């Protein structure tokens, strides 16, 4: 049954890692703006290209 103790300890540590990851992501500002990045990723990288098609 002592394997349970190891498993419990492991599971708490794994969960703790996720908690730290969460705190890190909040601190980095990932929760400050939940809209703009979703639009930003759809933009093409090279705006010059679209200019060529017009002229």
């Amino acid at each position: 049954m002592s394997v349970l103790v190891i498993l419990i300890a492991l599971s708490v540590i794994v969960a703790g890692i996720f908690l730290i990851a969460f705190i890190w992501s909040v601190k980095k500002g990932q929760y400050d703006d939940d809209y703009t990045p979703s639009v930003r990723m759809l933009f093409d990288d090279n705006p010059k290209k679209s200019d060529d098609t017009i002229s």
Partner: protein
Amino acid sequence: METIETIKPVKQFKPVIKEDTHCYHCGESCDHSICSEDKYFCCEGCKFVFELLQENGLCNYYDLSNTPGIKVKGKFTTDKYAYLENPDIQGKLVRFSDEKQTHVNFYLPQMHCASCIWLLENLHTLQKGILYAKTNFQRKEIFVAYDPSLTSLRKVVELLAFIGYEPYISFDSNEKKITKKVNRQKIFKIGVAGFCFSNIMMLSFPEYFSSGHIDEGYLRVIFTYLSLFLSLPVIFYSAAEFFVSAWKGIRQRWLNIDAPIALALAVTFARSLYEVVSGTGPGYFDSLSGIVLFMLVGRWFQDKTYDSFSFDRDYKSYFPLGVTRVNGQEESAVTINELKKGDRILVRGSEMIPADAVLMKGEASIDYSFVSGENSLVEKRKGELIYAGARQMGGSIELEVVHPVSQSYITQLWNNNEVFENNKNVEKSFIHPWSKYFTLGLFAVAAITALYWWRMDSSKLLPAVTAALIVACPCFLLLAATFTYGNMLRIYGRNKLYLKNASVIETLAKINTIVFDKTGTLTHTSEASVRFQGEILKPEEEQAVYSLSKQSVHPLSRLLTRDLLKNKVEPLPVTGFAEKAGKGIEGVVNGKKVRIGSGAYIRGEEQDAPGDMTEVWISIEGQIRGCFTINNRYRDGIHQMAEQLEKRRFRLHVLSGDNPSEKMNLRRIFGQEASLLFNQSPQDKLDYIQSLQQQTSRVLMLGDGLNDAGALKQSDAGIAVTENSSQFTPASDAILDSSQIGRMDAFIRYAQSGKQIVMTSFIISILYNIVGLSFAVQASLSPLVAAILMPISSISIVTFVTIASSFSAKRKGL
């Protein structure tokens, strides 16, 4: 009403162009006179922006969404941002600076679509020296990093203003940074509580399924101590705000809703701690952390506000930051707070006059709509006094300051009234008395239980009493209210009524008197109904009138131009154009002399007849052809709204800063019972609201401009009406999109239903509490029962209020 407006005597005119033309940049309807590369524009400004973007290969802007641009307003005066060269001002705006880069954050109210994000983040291609720019769409903010050796703050702002995103610059914009930090704290607390709750639950499962008989004794010890350890951050970090708030309430001798919650949390924790240390049981850590998590989520849900709106603006937000001071030949940019009596200032076209001042040089045509709500231009001559808040519409003028900014006519409203200093008396929610009764009732139950067990079996006294306090956690009071109001705020937001916070819903439900401002609130600000009376104009004559009036920036000319544009006319060249300030305009079109102006100017009378209407007279080749009457156009649905509100016995009042010319129309709309007052100054409006409140009325005020600011603040609930959410609104409790004003009745009814929903959910949860208490008082509340009962009651309440509030909204057509 509507039918009268649409009938125009000029209907028989055959349009020259078949399709509607819209400006390629901003989408406003326009004619074909300004074009570039087969694209048409409404003004030179829009065309310039298009050409600038095209030069830099940024035409993607127009592909991402249709006509994303913002109409360039007025002429772009090059010295407008001269004050940004002032190092003091720079120091206040810049966030970070060294030799290589400077960081600055701006609020851009005009940001509105994906194209905006794209263009603004490509700012570096438009100006050398800008390193990068990053937008936050929801907050409408842009972060710009630039190289101070290549460009300057002023140049960055000028570029932003030129492409249509004029930054809103104010010294007190620091407030936003503080709220950001607070929000993060909330997310941390929820995250920590969630983490601890899920782990404690996992550790509690063996206990539940073995019904308290775990074979391996040491495992049980490990589980319970681990749970205790995990509950520490919950009680001391996540739940700290409940204890702080309860303590603050008690110190002010007031039992708020957090007091019984804090008590329940403390008792639960103490009893669980005792059980674990004494080895008598597993404790109630699972229920404890679950409840804290639910309550925090509820508060976060309710407090999620509209980041891009500001509900606390005072006059300072409307006024420019800097102004040009003239000292002999020397011009210098100073902040408006530095202005002293006797200073000479230079105000350019379409700029605001920041302090009461006397006109010294130049011709002033003043737009006072901001101060008085009256929407026509006033001509001022040399030596006349002009009040702060007025906008100069003509050329540059020079003025001498009479009062410093803080003592000007309009800003005095803020100085003399305690209304603006104190926040509105925060209405204590009806939930608080409930929590008081609940706490008292709970104490009574606990006392009876104690008495009973003291007589029967004193060993069970403490377990029974603490169990009663644990299971009857008053958190349902909080959960019911936060989730109901949180959901209602979102539903209001979807219907374009943006409330400042949840307590506004309760205030709205108690309203019995509604006061409307007229100009801008009941009527359109930029649209009017234009009707022609007289000899019908031929198409080419109409074209001539259009061409001439297009030359002028007078508000009436603009209204006329816009109306004539509906007939799809094209402008012709105008020669000999002359504008007589305050009188009218004239010019030669197609060889014919056309004059447009006031009755006095065209008909050669001494004075205007004191009519109730605004009239624009037309004469062609010296022959008077008739006049356009320009009336305020009421917003759609006003008539119906007034009828509905009247039926529901609200007392209606209309306050107008304008003259009584619209009295008949308003009477028709609002009925005989409504009181209509005209020529009201901002102070009059405030006093009127105050006098209504003394007659025990609960007043809802709807207004738009700065002239309503006092009344909005004084009223129980003030709603600022705006045509464009990027426009600034005065301090208020809510911001309403003007297209939705006809639904006021539904909004109020929905607020009233909110209270019923919360009450119903109270009754449901009291039933739960009776079940829980019946276990508790028998001293037979196992942690399992608590762990099942508490989440079920929380989840069922949340589900009930969410469904009920959404259903109620649907029934009211929201």
